[in-house]
């Protein structure tokens, strides 16, 4: 039996990490159990990375409320947690009378939701904002933005960790049972079962994302229907971002935002997502026909999508809570005091879960506070400092960095100009992550034109040396994703 906790959060996506950080504001012994080897491995990191304005959701929903609140606090979060966020705005582009009516409805809905900075613009203004975009008019959402979802999550998780939260990776919860606590037979602890042993806790938070229904069932809260909406994306090379100052969306339908083109904070462009209903929440393969359809569809919005500029593809799956008719529901965030007391159950956290992660977390922790007095953590420090990006510095700053730390003069990833100092900082990350993608997403190493052809060997070697692991233990991303099967020549044993 492992140690006993006050709260255990299941899932280290953006919401689980945000909840962990909110909990670390109080004097609670908190842990996060994550089935993957790093944070942000599923839905949180597999999306358009857009900070939404809050106009796309029905009035009065949690989605609308948390989206608007999350949007408004993003500058503060970005400065506290040191992750890239750009309030670049976005446009929803239309052509027909029907499009105009839909945009007017969207404007009105946004106003009711408290979304600000919405304006209908004509073609001329649209082309001033985004040259080459195809459309007759648009709704311009000035408060929309883009962020790095991975570094946002890392920032939340590292800050939670610095404030006392423990993270356990490769810890999939396989079952939940109850155990009497003390002499009072009505009181109990939850026991969370994992392949690496059991965890005892008073409170459980289900932030399992795609696994929300499974965990909910384990808690005894049954009956939810959750479907997966899989969206495929293609990524265009870095130079293309210069041609796209802000995300360009088509006019949305009531249920689907449509295939859009989005600049990333690093200057790439993502094209997607489509929306396929799926049962398998673990299959992220991108089919050829989807890739072709994405490029074709988005070319109607923006003409710069060419096969030779494509550098990668990816997909993400949104867990959508639906009713018996398949109609998509709001976020569900609840404590069922009768069925599963002291369990905060989050179901169907999909878009805008990234934008609304912190308000969602505040609400979830609020449900605990309604039931139990929490004492503030006097040592809580909201500030987390990320890895200094050499490539983003001026020549003078670069010279200063090198003078302070000679490892900054050793460039490991040539394409993205990532130095040994940054790789080492990523390897020794506070959360103890040791995968290649963990290094990649923390530093951008291996993300450039050669797609790791020249540098992955060096990074793999550094992981071995710094962590004292053998080559067969280094994983690419998920558990079991070995890179090397051994050595060519073994050193004779002494």
């Amino acid at each position, binding site marked *: 039996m492992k140690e006993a906790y006050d709260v255990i959060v299941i899932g280290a996506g953006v919401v689980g990490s945000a909840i962990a950080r909110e909990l670390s504001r109080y004097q609670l012994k908190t842990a996060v159990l994550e089935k993957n080897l790093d944070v942000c491995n599923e839905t949180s990191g597999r999306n358009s990375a857009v900070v939404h304005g809050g106009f796309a959701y029905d009035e009065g929903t949690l989605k609308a409320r948390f989206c608007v609140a999350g949007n408004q606090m993003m500058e503060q979060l970005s400065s506290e947690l040191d992750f890239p966020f750009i309030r670049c705005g976005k446009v929803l582009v239309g052509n027909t009378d029907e499009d105009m009516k839909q945009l007017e409805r969207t404007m009105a809905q946004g106003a009711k939701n408290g979304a600000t900075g919405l304006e209908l613009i004509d073609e001329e203004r649209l082309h001033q904002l985004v040259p080459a975009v195809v459309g007759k008019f648009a709704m311009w959402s000035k408060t929309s933005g883009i962020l790095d979802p991975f570094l946002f999550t890392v920032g939340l998780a590292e800050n939670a960790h610095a404030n006392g939260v423990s993270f356990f990776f490769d810890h999939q919860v396989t079952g939940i049972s109850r155990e009497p606590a003390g002499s009072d037979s009505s009181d109990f602890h939850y026991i969370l079962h994992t392949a690496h042993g059991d965890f005892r806790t008073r409170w459980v938070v289900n932030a399992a994302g795609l696994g929300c229904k499974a965990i909910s069932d384990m808690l005894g809260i049954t009956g939810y229907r959750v479907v997966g909406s899989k969206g495929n994306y293609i990524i265009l090379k870095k130079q293309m971002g210069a041609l796209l100052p802000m995300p360009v969306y088509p006019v949305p339908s009531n249920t689907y935002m449509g295939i859009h083109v989005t600049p990333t904070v690093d200057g790439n462009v993502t094209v997607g997502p489509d929306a396929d209903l799926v049962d398998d929440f673990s299959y992220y393969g991108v089919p050829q026909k989807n890739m072709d359809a994405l490029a074709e569809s988005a070319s109607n919005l923006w003409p710069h999508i060419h096969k030779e500029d494509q550098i990668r593809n990816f997909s993400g799956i949104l867990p959508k809570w639906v009713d018996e008719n398949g109609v998509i529901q709001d976020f569900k965030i609840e404590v069922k005091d009768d069925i599963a007391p002291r369990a905060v159950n989050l179901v169907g956290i999909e878009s805008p879960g990234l934008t609304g992660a912190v308000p969602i977390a505040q609400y979830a922790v609020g449900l605990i506070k309604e039931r139990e007095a929490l004492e503030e953590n006097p040592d809580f420090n909201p500030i987390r400092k990320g890895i200094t990006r050499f490539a983003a510095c001026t020549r003078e700053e670069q010279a200063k960095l090198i003078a302070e730390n000679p490892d900054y003069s050793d460039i490991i990833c040539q394409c993205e100009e990532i130095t040994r100092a940054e790789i080492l900082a990523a390897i020794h990350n506070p959360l103890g992550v040791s995968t290649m993608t963990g290094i990649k997403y923390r530093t951008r190493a291996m993300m450039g034109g050669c797609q790791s052809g020249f540098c992955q060997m060096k990074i793999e070697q550094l992981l071995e040396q710094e962590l004292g692991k053998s080559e067969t233990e280094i994983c690419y991303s998920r558990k079991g994703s070995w890179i090397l099967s051994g050595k060519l*020549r073994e050193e004779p044993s002494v």
Partner: protein
Amino acid sequence: MSENIIKKTYTCIICPNGCDIEAEIKDGEILSITGHTCPKGEAYVHQELTAPTRTIATSVLVLGGELPLASVRLTNPIPKDKIFPAMEEIKKLTLTAPVKEGTVVLEKVCGLDSDVIVTKNVQVK
């Protein structure tokens, strides 16, 4: 007796030209060769017909070096069927830095007329 004459095509591997050579062979004897552009091509076909040979390149473990391996190659081609036995011999070798290009690290591999020589300098770490 023409039914005993076999026509066979070879792609010469001696140089990157990769000449397509056609040979007429009867009872293991070459009657004619066409398509080659230098005498090496003719010699190659003779060799292929009688006892095909190949060379190999691989690496040897280096202890205490700035690099873990020194690359090596054979000085002469060896019979094709000796490639894997030769690999086994070479895999057993261990060198200590510094290692100099051109050093013979194994003479007459598998008793054949070919030595294993180092092709890369490896300094002490």
